[in-house]
């Protein structure tokens, strides 16, 4: 089989990218290994999606449904293959697709990689103790509850106070699982203040800051979780242990961009751990573009959609014959944890995503000769700013800093 554009993954990023490419008149194949399109959105049945893009508050499945409908408006140009896993991508622009309908090779002119992220597993935390059942990552818990209608336990503790952790605390409570607390190793909540109030305070769920899990106990099903306070270097402080009698532990300790399929084809960014992209969405391999959580972990689906559209647009222009420079590197400076994209290619203004290193009341963001003041910054909330092209001319390297004022 042959196509102009192969989109790998039909989450928010992949669907938006496919539509953008179809609008440019190209033939697109979207491969999605799940049974339906939508990606992670399908299991996020809470609302809080689409405020920027649709100016409405939707649930995840509703947001996905809107894009599914849009995709179906392009049936001539876009072929969506669900239940179809892309197993390999080769240097010669051939991909191997595996599905119950068949196993086949597909030749493409360009790839838009939109494979999303995976969760950090329990084992990566190296928490000592037993290995009982009852330990779930938030995503698994969410899928079991929201899609498969399963109750995962009776008394739960949650690790990680990012938005996902807090939303799960509320969901579990609503579904009849008692949540005894949320443990966070940072001295401040990892997610939005709105979620601290709506998901924890409103349900009387205690938040234990500067704390971590130091041991799990239970030979068969989980029985106890030991939590201790931590010092500034996140080392547990002996003597501060507290035992929670729970049968369920839910971990929400971060997402990792899924990049393994492209490991040998493209370069990665050390900070985001995702695919290093230019502002056109182009990777270090000129026919591979990428968007969404496989490039950097985004807070909002609206951003992911926009990045998907961008990748779709430039990927189609590439197929049509336009060539882009890789551009100059964008690097995190003072108080900046990470930035996206990783390179700036001088074809348009720059939409820049920045995550700060620590909470700050007021700070000046400096990018080239561009400056803007931001307030109430927290690491969990990305700053998004459009930097005009003329502010970036002549730079060999773009450093992004946040100076506290």
């Amino acid at each position, binding site marked *: 089989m042959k196509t102009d554009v192969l989109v790998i993954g039909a989450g928010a990023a992949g669907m938006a990218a496919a539509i953008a490419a179809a609008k440019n008149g190209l033939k697109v194949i979207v491969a999605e290994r799940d049974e339906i399109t939508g990606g992670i959105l399908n299991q996020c049945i809470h609302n809080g999606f689409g405020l920027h893009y649709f100016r409405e508050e939707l649930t995840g499945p509703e947001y996905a449904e809107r894009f599914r409908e849009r995709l179906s408006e392009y049936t001539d140009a876009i072929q969506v293959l669900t239940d179809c896993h892309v197993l390999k991508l080769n240097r010669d622009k051939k991909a191997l697709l*595996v599905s119950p*309908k068949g196993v086949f090779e597909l030749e493409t002119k360009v790839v838009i990689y939109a494979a999303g992220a995976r969760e950090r597993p329990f084992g990566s935390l190296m928490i000592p103790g037993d290995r009982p059942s009852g330990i779930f990552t938030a995503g698994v818990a969410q899928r079991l509850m929201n*899609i498969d209608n399963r109750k995962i336990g009776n008394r739960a503790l949650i690790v990680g106070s990012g938005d996902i952790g807090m939303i799960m605390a509320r969901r579990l409570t609503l579904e009849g699982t008692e949540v005894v607390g949320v443990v966070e190793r940072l001295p401040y909540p990892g997610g939005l203040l709105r979620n601290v109030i709506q998901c924890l305070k409103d349900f009387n769920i205690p938040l234990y800051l500067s704390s971590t899990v130091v041991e799990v106990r239970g030979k068969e099903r989980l029985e106890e979780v030991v939590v201790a306070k931590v010092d500034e270097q996140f080392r547990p402080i002996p003597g501060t242990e507290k035992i929670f009698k729970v049968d369920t532990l839910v971990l929400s300790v971060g997402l990792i961009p899924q990049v393994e399929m492209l490991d040998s084809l493209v370069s990665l960014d050390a900070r985001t751990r995702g695919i290093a992209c230019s502002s056109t969405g182009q990777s270090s391999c000129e026919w591979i573009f990428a968007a969404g959580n496989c490039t950097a972990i985004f807070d909002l689906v609206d951003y992911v959609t926009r990045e998907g559209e961008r990748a779709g647009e430039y990927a189609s222009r590439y197929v049509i014959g336009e060539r882009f420079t890789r551009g100059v590197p964008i690097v995190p400076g003072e108080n900046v944890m990470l930035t996206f994209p990783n390179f700036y290619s001088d074809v348009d203004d720059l939409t820049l995503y920045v995550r700060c290193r620590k909470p700050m009341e007021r700070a000046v963001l400096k990018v080239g000769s561009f400056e803007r003041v931001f307030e109430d910054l927290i690491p969990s909330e990305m700053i998004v700013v459009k930097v005009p092209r003329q502010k970036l001319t002549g730079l060999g390297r773009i450093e992004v800093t946040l100076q506290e004022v």
Partner: protein
Amino acid sequence: MRIAVIGAGVVGSLIARELCRYDVEVLLIEKNLDVGWGVTKANSAILHAGYDDPVGSVRSRFCSVGNSMYTELSRELDFEIKRTGSYVLAFNDEEIAVLHRLLKQGEKNNVPGLELHDRDTILSREPRVNPEVKMGLWAPTAGITEPWMVAIAAVENALENGLKLFLNEEVVDFERQNGRIVGIVTNKAKHRVDVVINAAGLFADEIAKRVGAEFVPLHPRKGEYILLDKKLGSTVRSIIFPAPTEKSKGILVLPTIDGGLLLGPTAEDLPSDRKHDLSTTSQGLEAVKGFVLKLVPGIDFSMAVKTFAGLRPESPQKDFFIRASDSVKNFVNVMAMRSPGLTAAPAIARYVVEEILQQQLGLKFSPKRDFNPLRKGIKKYAELSVEEWQRAVKESPAAGRMVCFCNEVTEVEIIEAIRRGARTLDGVKFRTRAMFGRCQGGFCMSRILKILERELGLDASKIVLKSPSSWIIDGKVRE
């Protein structure tokens, strides 16, 4: 004649298979829900070359022979082994002296191919090891395998040849008459038996005590491990040992069969009442981290996917205890299987059946004419050519549904694992490697649960992780 083997670890499973070559009735009784889940589940998975067992020890008698038997065994039973070779590294003169001693000992133990390598040779083959290395003992026959797979494969083949397998059944007592065992009492049933072979791993001393036979006391020696992502699997090509001490072979760095990197084990002696203590500890994991950096600097621990612990059945003699009982005439102990018990197991199995049972006890077995030594593993579709795979999918669409993305396991493989006896999530995991990869089941666990539910005709709330009370979900969220 009915012969019962207690314990379906690698030792008991291989003995059971060996017995199935003959016209006898073979019973294999295992208290866990699946085979290979005792000591066999959590160890270094090394086929040791055989240079570090004292000359004249029972260990030395079986190690290098067992090692060499693995080539044929893995072919017959279709499980993977890799002859990676191993290095013992020396960083100072004292350790160099240890290498010379091991070389001599190895030669006496008939270990083939041992060589002393200088720094440059070592670094040319293993560029990531600490450049301060001075000398290394190279053992080309050392290798790796998946220990639980050896047990699974042996049992599957034995079942094909008439084995009666009893899972989830614990031996609790024995019936005796005239100094012989006539029956085994389990928590579920009574089995009439003519001969009993005790291969109960960590608990073999307790079994022998119940019988009233001789035994060596066992205590657990804990070994903790850290397993790292496949991305780091090529950090080393062979097994990297430090120079051993009196107490243990030390903390190692080695590749795993499926491409990960394994670090460990520690060696901590526990009292004999802690044979169920498989917990990891912060001291243990820190010790592993600290130690391996001396062998291979720059290992990125943020790539960890799992930590776990195993327990060696250690005895005061530090040697295997394999013999027919003097006081109970039809009882055979195969116990104290510390390292290299995995390596030695095929040689031990043959010895128990051919020498102990047939020669020493004088039992007369006739070979089973239709014994089939071959077993096929579960086909890995991702390893097929596109054309072959395409054909398979035409026959069965599930062969084209990827369930575990990290380790590329299809739905057909999961179904096949269930047909072959997996009843639990771990049962599927250890047979197929699904949920074993970098996401540790993040994407596939819920799908596998559904497949188990469908294939077994059970509600998901009845499906467990590994033991009867290790439930995973507690009913429905809403009706």
